[in-house]
């Protein structure tokens, strides 16, 4: 019983400390799309800051759109094709790192971002390069994930086709 009480007390204390730390640091941390629905003003104030995404996360039909990080915007400005792929079950940044590494190694890929909020993989290809839906699906499988849908071009940017 002592053990259980000790465990509960220590865990509760740790939780309290971390919650306090998280509350305190929330305003200073760089969250690309975190809390994008609840904190629109927060995102608007920070839009344009380094490393931040600034879209509302979805296109007109409610599907996730391209997440606009600094790298993604830079690649788009150079004329690369935007692609958004819905990834099933991507909730962990440490696991999603495999996708960053596998897609990031490809010569066709100019920029990549895995958005854990929208569960979408944002890609911008090198100008003139192409990547088939099947290749995207195969690379995602190599990373341990499955792709539910792929959108390209204006649809990926959040505009209805």
């Amino acid at each position, binding site marked *: 019983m002592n053990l259980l009480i*000790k465990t509960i007390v220590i865990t509760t204390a*740790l939780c309290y400390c971390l919650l306090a730390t998280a509350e305190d640091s929330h305003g200073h941390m760089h*969250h690309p799309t975190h809390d994008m629905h609840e904190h629109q003003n927060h995102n608007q104030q920070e839009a344009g800051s380094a490393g931040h995404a600034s879209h509302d996360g979805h296109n007109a039909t409610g599907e996730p759109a391209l997440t606009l990080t600094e790298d993604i915007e830079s690649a788009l400005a150079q004329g690369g094709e935007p692609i958004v792929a819905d990834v099933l079950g991507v909730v962990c940044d440490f696991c999603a790192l495999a996708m960053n590494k596998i897609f990031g190694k490809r010569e066709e890929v100019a920029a990549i971002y895995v958005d854990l909020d929208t569960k979408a993989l944002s890609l911008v290809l090198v100008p003139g390069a192409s990547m088939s839906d099947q290749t995207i699906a195969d690379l995602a499988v190599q990373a341990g994930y499955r792709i539910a849908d792929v959108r390209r071009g204006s649809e990926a940017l959040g505009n209805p086709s």
Partner: protein
Amino acid sequence: MAIYGGVMADWETRSLFVGYRNRYLEAGDYASQFMQAFRVGFAPYEGDSGDLHTWLMLEIDHRPSEPESVTATPLIRFFKGPLLVEAGYNLTANQPLFNFTYRF
């Protein structure tokens, strides 16, 4: 001849984690060990890609061959990019726990 095997499974969301793992080692006269561990955790905030992620976890270990067969270890897990660190303390065995993983 030695036999070694194990199973690991987990379920998680952005803020909840449940995991189970076990392993079995049979090495003749040298060793015969089985252990299983159940872990629950939650994240006090939801980090995005590239952020520092924090998880508070509790692991319950069961090692039938040990005098204290069931032990509890509260721990804290941090990860950012390819680096994952866990630090905790086994309350039953009075031993610290430290795990470190780097994803190449």
